[in-house]
């Protein structure tokens, strides 16, 4: 009986390995002479295409006086080029330069804190707004957006993370050349016009996403407190005073250091012909000169030698986050963490859910994930909301009990098989959307060095043993390596 079961399992994995090969079969890879990497998948489900461009630069690459620039630059790259977004760049440029001079003077004045210079500040502010109004007359506002949307483009957006910056759009399949024209222009001829207004927009984004949202504010504080040396600790959006002191000059320096074809990965997925797409991309991007190879981050986070506890007092109910430092993506132990993460935190059969939400009912929800980035050593994080009258302390204890159990009791084979089954399903499902596939291809190519990380993932997970899990749990889930962040309600319950 047992033999038959094994045979059945083998058969199942054989059948599914055919599915896994389809990603390998479907991805067409092309590296251009200037180093730009192009990944394509033909999908003819609908006459649409998604195009994503990922630059291997994120907030982790910022120096301390540049915090927030990767993200602000991402905003700025929507503002046009020397030919798009402007009525007359030649007339515009001298005004932009004048704005830059006044903005620097204004920042310098503001930096002289406590000095009696209110009048000087007011005068400079007035001068700046006059110049901005003059420059504004020459701008064709958001022309990239206008061109894309008139042509039926949707989801035109970009995002910046610790690890990277990505620009994305979906278009009717016959309009892919529009993307090639706009994006190759943006890469070579970007003009960071309307800089200081956009900087204000980013400050509002910061207020909205962090300052006024207690849980995000805790998250930001928690991550910052988890890193003493490595730039993963700094918030991608920057602290408020960082943003206040960013300049167009800094943004341009950053742009020219990192935005080069050899630092870019393109994924085009959808109703395309791969050969024609290669020709199109070569035609528009092929002549762009490669830049210098950007330097990797050299800071190493010193090994944590004691628990860190972070409290945020806020007008909000308690919440708790628990983090442990761990290796980066695709490191051998990272695969073990993937398994641990699913055993503890994925779905209704996960240990955290069953124990804390259903059995003890001390939490309403609990999850486990990796953060804040993947390229460099990161953290395994558990986040939960306690259910009153239960406390964050009770959650901490119950979580630690589950982590300790992993150290001593081997995980059952059925639990490991369930994880493999889940990954098999996800492998199939993720082939189902242009955008999702383009996202994964660019993300894994950038963070692990190859999109093949995806097709090899299940094989690596299958090799993780119960003994590996016990070893990793024992190594990492220690008090020394733990950071705990929690919200205490201002004034308590009244």
């Amino acid at each position, binding site marked *: 009986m047992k033999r038959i079961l094994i045979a059945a399992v083998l058969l199942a994995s054989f059948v599914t390995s055919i*599915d896994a090969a389809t990603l390998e079969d479907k991805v067409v890879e092309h590296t251009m*002479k200037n180093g730009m990497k192009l990944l394509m998948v033909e999908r003819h*489900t*609908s*006459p*649409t295409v998604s195009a994503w461009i990922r630059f291997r630069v994120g907030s982790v690459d910022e120096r301390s006086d540049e915090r927030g620039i990767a993200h602000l630059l991402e905003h700025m790259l929507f503002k046009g080029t020397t030919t*798009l977004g402007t009525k007359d760049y030649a007339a515009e440029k001298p005004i932009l330069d004048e704005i830059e001079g006044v903005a620097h003077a204004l920042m310098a004045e503001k930096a002289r804190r406590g000095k009696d210079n209110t009048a000087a500040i007011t005068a400079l502010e007035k001068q700046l707004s006059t110049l901005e109004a003059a420059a504004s007359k020459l701008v064709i*506002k*958001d022309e990239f*957006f*206008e061109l894309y*949307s*008139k*042509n*039926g483009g949707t989801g*035109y957006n970009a995002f910046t993370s610790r690890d990277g910056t990505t620009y994305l759009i979906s278009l*009717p399949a*016959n309009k892919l*050349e*529009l993307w090639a*024209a706009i994006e*190759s*222009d943006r890469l070579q001829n970007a003009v960071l016009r309307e800089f200081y*207004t*956009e900087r*204000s*927009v*980013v400050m*509002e984004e910061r*207020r*909205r*996403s962090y*300052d*006024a*949202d*207690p*849980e995000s504010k805790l998250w930001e504080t928690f991550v910052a407190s988890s890193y003493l040396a490595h730039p993963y600790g700094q918030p991608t959006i920057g602290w408020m005073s960082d943003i206040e002191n960013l300049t167009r000059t800094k943004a341009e320096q950053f742009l020219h250091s990192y935005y080069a074809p050899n630092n870019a990965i393109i994924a085009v997925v959808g109703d395309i012909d791969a050969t024609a797409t290669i020709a199109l991309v070569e*035609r*528009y991007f092929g*002549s762009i*000169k490669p830049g210098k190879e950007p330097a990797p981050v050299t800071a190493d986070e010193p090994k944590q030698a004691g628990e860190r506890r972070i409290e945020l007092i806020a*007008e*909000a*109910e308690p919440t708790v986050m628990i983090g442990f430092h761990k290796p980066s993506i695709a490191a051998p132990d990272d695969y073990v963490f993937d398994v641990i993460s699913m055993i503890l935190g994925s779905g209704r*059969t996960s240990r955290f859910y069953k124990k804390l*939400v*259903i059995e003890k009912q001390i939490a309403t929800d609990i999850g486990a994930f990796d953060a804040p980035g993947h390229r460099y050593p990161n953290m395994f994080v558990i986040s939960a*909301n306690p*259910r*009153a009258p239960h406390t964050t302390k009770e959650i901490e204890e119950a979580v630690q009990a589950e982590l300790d159990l992993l150290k001593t009791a081997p995980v059952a084979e*059925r639990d490991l*098989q369930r994880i493999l*089954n*889940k990954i*098999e*399903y996800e492998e*199939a*499902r993720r082939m*189902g*959307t242009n955008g999702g596939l383009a996202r994964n291809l660019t993300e894994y190519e950038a963070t692990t060095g190859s999109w093949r990380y995806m097709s090899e993932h299940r094989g690596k997970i299958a090799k993780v043993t119960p003994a590996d899990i016990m070893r990793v749990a024992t190594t990492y889930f220690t008090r020394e390596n733990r950071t705990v962040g929690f919200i205490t309600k201002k004034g308590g319950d009244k």
Partner: protein
Amino acid sequence: MRALLVFLCVLVTVMLQGCCVVNQRLADPRTMKFPELNFKIPSTERVVLECGIPVYLLRDTELPIINMSAMVRVGSVYEPAAKAGLSGMVGSVMRSGGAAGTASETMDDELEFMASAVESGIGSDMGTVSLTALKKNFSRTLQIFSDVLLRPDFSEKRIEIFRRQTIESLRRQNDDPKEIAGREINRAIYAGHPLGDITTFESINAIKRQDLVDFHQRFYRQDNMILSVSGDFDRTALLKELNSVFKATTQSTTLVLPEVPQPQQRFQGEILYGKKDVNQTVIRMGHLGLTKDSPDIYAVRLLDYILGGSFTSRLTMEIRTNQGLAYSVGSHFDIGRRFTGSFIAETETKAESTGKALNLMNKIITDLTKEQVTDAELYAAREYMINSFMFGFTNPASIVNQRARLEYYRYPDGYLEQYRDNIAKVTKKDILEAAQKYLHPDAFKLVVIGDAAKFDLPLTSRGSVREFDLKVNIPKP
């Protein structure tokens, strides 16, 4: 030697570039021409099962996955205000509380081992149960799907867990200023209608298990639902399976759906304020809108895009792009499918520019009721709507669900087929008339959450302000 090679490579690169620049055949994005693309709406098949349930089918073998969903004529509008939260509880515990004698834990384990999912929920005017499974696990997952849909057990233990979780979420309902504002603008717009009711500690505690059983029994009937299936199925085998799982039964009672009146159009302005110790103010303003049965919906969709529905809309252009007063600003006509929808304009801005942002929003909205939009605005909005239409049809599951939804809400025949033509017909005059008919800034319910002490203009300069208490009054258990 190595240095020389590098030097040569660099040189070659530069020469190649020289040649490409000369041989430039790059098109200008402003004037670029494109090959024709004739998009045809994918067709789906409608079949009626032997038991009478309509099923929409779309076979697509790209992935070895089957998706399915049931839409049930139910909703929170059918729950009594004294038991607000009942429908949400029914929707959730149908899935979490076991079904057909299978305990929750067993069902969870079986589904997750197959990497299948069955989920259930009830919104304001629709209940859904959905399924996703690898093809090889479809039959077993379908059985569980039908059990959850028709034979839930509503275990007492899971009802209690859901109730306690709801109570916890009520304790947390005033933590996030945006969440507070979203809830309060909806309550203000739909005051006096079931759509404006909210769950309270009292209402959630008033619900008994029998209420769930009765509510489910009343609405989850085979004569009150529509199914849709997409993915890698064999048509004949699928229909055979569906006919065996959803057997023809004789209902002992006839289906009666309660009459729920439309919300009353009472255009009367009101200012609501809640104090939070934050550096950014959350602003929401709006009133009732229209339903899909109005002939004006096409003009309203274009108006919506021009006013606040795109990155180049008037609200975003002025308040974000030109003035840097907000990261997120916009407006939206939620066109009601069954009940009159709403119009809501929203932003968040630093406390010190609250008054300025409010004035700008009011002016921008009012301007649209006074003058026609420009040709360029109409053109841009129309082109976007028509050219992006195909993105509504990019995956098989959303295509069949959309077809089922059109039947569910009784859209007229040909709605999708004529959509682009109807958009193309809208004139600037139509948009002005729609703005005059559906936008009444004087009658906005205005919700402001923030720290009024820091505002640039006092809220009271706009009229009398009703402040609500954001302290959650937690009843003793």
